[in-house]
């Protein structure tokens, strides 16, 4: 007799019946469940042709749809990245232009566009030039006077247009440069008559 059979615990455990009869027959319920579903390998055998082909076709369409989605997605992502980098380049260029213009703008503190007033020094010099211009142009022949006044009016009208546009796009460096150039042209026109007609000039520090 081996050790397991002499140990009372093993003897008691070994004496327990390994089989237990069910109180009710479970087969009826089992049969009801399995009759609706044949074994797996048999199910595969039965549905071998049509459903599998259908599945393959569906699978192929799904693969194609997935490929199209992947291509569209990657294209959109690339477009977004390119657009973003282009915008960043434009923004950097604008910032660079403004930085380049900053000394000029600081030297002539004129506010561009909108209702902001130009710098006080500029206004003072400009007023003096205008007075001198009016005084001297009155002595010129009518044809010359009309041409000068028309040129001056054109410049001022252009400046007003540019300033109005700049009011709508205050950060546009090209408009800022154009307005600055217009003001300079106006001052040059006012001063040109002064230089030609009289030996003394009005100093304007632009």
């Amino acid at each position, binding site marked *: 007799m081996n*050790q397991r059979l*002499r*140990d*009372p*615990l*093993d*003897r*008691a*455990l*070994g*004496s*327990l*019946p*390994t*089989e*237990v*009869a*069910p*109180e*009710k027959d*479970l*087969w009826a*319920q*089992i*049969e009801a*469940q*399995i*009759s609706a*579903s*044949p*074994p*797996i*390998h*048999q199910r*595969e055998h039965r549905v071998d042709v049509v459903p599998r082909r259908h599945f393959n076709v569906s699978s192929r369409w799904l693969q194609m749809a997935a490929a199209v989605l992947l291509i569209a997605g990657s294209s959109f992502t690339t477009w977004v990245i390119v657009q973003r980098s282009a915008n960043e380049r434009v923004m950097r260029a604008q910032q660079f232009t403004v930085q380049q213009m900053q000394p000029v703008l600081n030297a002539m503190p004129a506010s561009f566009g909108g209702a902001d007033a130009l710098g006080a020094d500029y206004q003072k010099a400009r007023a003096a030039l205008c007075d001198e211009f009016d005084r001297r142009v009155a002595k010129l022949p009518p044809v010359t006077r009309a041409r000068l006044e028309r040129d001056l009016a054109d410049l001022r009208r252009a400046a007003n247009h540019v300033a109005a546009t700049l009011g709508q796009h205050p950060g546009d460096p090209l408009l800022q440069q154009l307005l600055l150039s217009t003001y300079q042209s106006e001052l040059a026109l006012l001063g040109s008559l002064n230089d030609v007609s009289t030996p003394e000039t009005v100093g304007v520090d632009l």
Partner: protein
Amino acid sequence: MLSGIGAIEQPSALDRALSADTALILAARSGDVKAFEQIYRAHIGRVLGICLRMTHRRDVAEDCAQLTFVRAWRNLGAFEGRSAFGTWLHRIAVNEVLTYTRNHGTRLEAETQGLDDAHLDTEAAQGAMPAPGTVDAGEVMDMERALATLPEGSRHVVVLQAIYGYSHEEVAEMLGIAVGTCKAQLHRGRRMLRERLGLGEFEP
């Protein structure tokens, strides 16, 4: 030589049982429900025994046993014959019990009445008293009650190994635990059973 031929012509009872089981399995795999019913009749006792001892609730055990056979039917194609069909079936049963335990809490209310009744039914059916030297029905019921009080982990290992004879490796695989854990749980369960049954430490 003649005896060798005779051995081939007259296979052992185990061989006959195995070949009969194999024939039934093959028939069931091809959709023969009657063949599967014979498989059910041959295995329900042990499957229900495992479920009942692991859960200690007859209603839950019968549900698990029923699900075991339904799942076995659906997965007959996956049975490759590497282990005995009974072992494959018992793995499914243990899995059903563990799934039930996970879904309905880790502690099942212990109920030994079902097992007591099963023992009484078995005795009545056999119509015989226990043979001399063996344990009697009262001791068996005491053992069942002691088993029911074991912690779940220890009880599962004791049931599968000490009652149904599976190895540490097989039990560990069935329960999804390490072999070392399995050994520790068995040791703990046996110690607790000795305490509860008043059995001293056995010294060979």
